[in-house]
């Protein structure tokens, strides 16, 4: 046991050393072709813009105004992404299942969402689907009241479309849209696991569900983490679409500010830099995660 532990430590040490070697920067190794010039330019522009925003009073004022929407942008993105992950996992699993209904329903949903522009979906879900759903519930409430369940029925029929704020509708719209995208991510991730894994698990007497849960999904999710990270970044950007529903995220707040101050350059430059700082730092985090798991197996 003792000798094995030393062996294990040696493996780890040599890995760490190797990584350090790669990361250590020396002029001799500098290859101007490989240098990420785009990233340097991006960082430089962000830095200059940030300095302007922080020193120029007009920009400063616009920036402070816009930052007030940051909380809502974050909440909408996080909430919608969490729901989309659950929805995507269920839909992805349904697409590869043997169930004729589940498979067709899932594919229908995915193809429907992929075939309609996101902005149009946003309007459709907020102004058609959600009100239609509320009408349906009202109808159900009426039917229940008639059937004698007046207490429960009247609660349902009293539900008004006004009770569902635009922020909630925006989250529903974003999660329904991204649920379809993430379904494809999960499906691809599951199908990337070799067939032998499912066979090994089934040959040991595990049910399909157990094999999925304990053997396939842990590997699939690990494989798709970078893709999930990138979709999270996309969603952060697409959350700007909720401004069309008058939800006060940073985009909407910037539009409002620009509208009444007529300082378009100040407003939209601040807005753009805010998104850029968030997305570039998030994509750095995704890269780090990606690298960590690339070292881990296979």
């Amino acid at each position: 046991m003792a000798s094995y532990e030393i062996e294990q430590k040696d493996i780890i040490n040599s890995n760490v050393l190797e990584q350090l070697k790669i990361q250590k920067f020396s002029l001799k190794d500098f290859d101007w072709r490989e240098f990420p010039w785009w990233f340097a330019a991006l960082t430089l522009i962000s830095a200059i813009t940030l300095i302007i925003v922080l020193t120029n009073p007009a920009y400063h004022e616009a920036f402070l105004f816009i930052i007030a929407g940051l909380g809502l942008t974050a909440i909408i993105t996080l909430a919608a992404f969490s729901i989309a992950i659950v929805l995507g996992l269920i839909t992805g699993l349904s697409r590869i299942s043997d169930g004729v209904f589940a498979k067709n329903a899932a594919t229908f949903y995915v193809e429907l969402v992929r075939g309609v522009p996101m902005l149009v979906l946003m309007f459709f879900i907020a102004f058609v689907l959600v009100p239609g759903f509320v009408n349906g519930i009202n109808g159900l409430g009426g039917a229940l009241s008639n059937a004698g369940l007046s207490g429960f029925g009247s609660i349902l029929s009293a539900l008004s479309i006004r009770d569902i704020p635009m922020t909630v509708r925006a989250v529903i719209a974003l999660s329904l849209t991204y649920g379809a995208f993430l379904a494809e991510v999960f499906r691809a991730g599951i199908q990337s696991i070799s067939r032998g894994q499912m066979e090994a698990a089934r040959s040991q007497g595990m049910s399909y569900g157990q094999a999925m849960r304990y053997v396939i999904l842990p590997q699939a999710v690990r494989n798709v983490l970078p893709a999930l990270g990138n979709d999270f970044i996309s969603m952060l950007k697409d959350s700007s679409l909720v401004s069309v529903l008058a939800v006060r995220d940073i985009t909407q707040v910037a539009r409002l500010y620009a509208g009444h101050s007529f300082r378009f350059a100040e407003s939209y430059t601040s807005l753009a830099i805010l998104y850029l700082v968030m997305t570039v730092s998030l994509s750095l985090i995704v890269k780090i995660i990606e690298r960590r798991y690339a070292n881990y197996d296979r």
Partner: protein
Amino acid sequence: MTDNIIKLRNVSKNFDEIAAVKNVSLTVERGKVVVIIGPSGSGKSTLLRCINRLEEPTEGEVWIDSELLDGSEQQLNDIRADIGMVFQQFNLYPHLTVLENITLAQKIVRKREKKEAQKIAMQQLERVGIAEKADNYPIQLSGGQQQRVAIARALSMNPKIMLFDEPTSALDPEMIKEVLDVMLMLAEEGSTMVIVTHEMGFARAAADVIICMALVEIVEHTTPEVLFNNPNHERTQLFLSQILTK
């Protein structure tokens, strides 16, 4: 009366319209080692996979321990838990350590406590000679070690039958012996084993019954002595002349 633990009756398996196994009947006695040989594409692996229904036979009956497989999910899971299978590509779970690989199905299929499952896993790892690798991940092991872990994983379920699907075909030559040695040990201990292999030396040493398949059918079903010294069927003669050097 013979105690037949596996009974195949007129089993056929078609992939689309192409026959992979045609009308095969076969019985395996408890405690015997059956080796299936034959050229590639002759249906050996498909026949083996029909036994634990990784392939569902197109026609015919499969009986395991006097129970007819009817395709119901629960029966299938119960029966599969009693049949250990070792694959050509090992198929260890790469996200789990060696120990976790061996305890997973014990816990969720056999419903064993974690402690007990670990104890059994360590016993099986001792048996195949790699207890010191328990906390490693499969990727850190050689092919031969991975295959021995796969055997330990199958054994930990206390199988009534062990199936081996070309267990040494994906191994570097210097690792074949360590896996065959483990299989020989199991054979000597009286396990029921059905083995698809190209290792003729092993077949001669371990097999009680040897079956030669060619063109999706069984062409010869005999003892190793007869098969290697005096094969009856011309297909067997051809196959052996192609693989055995004088």
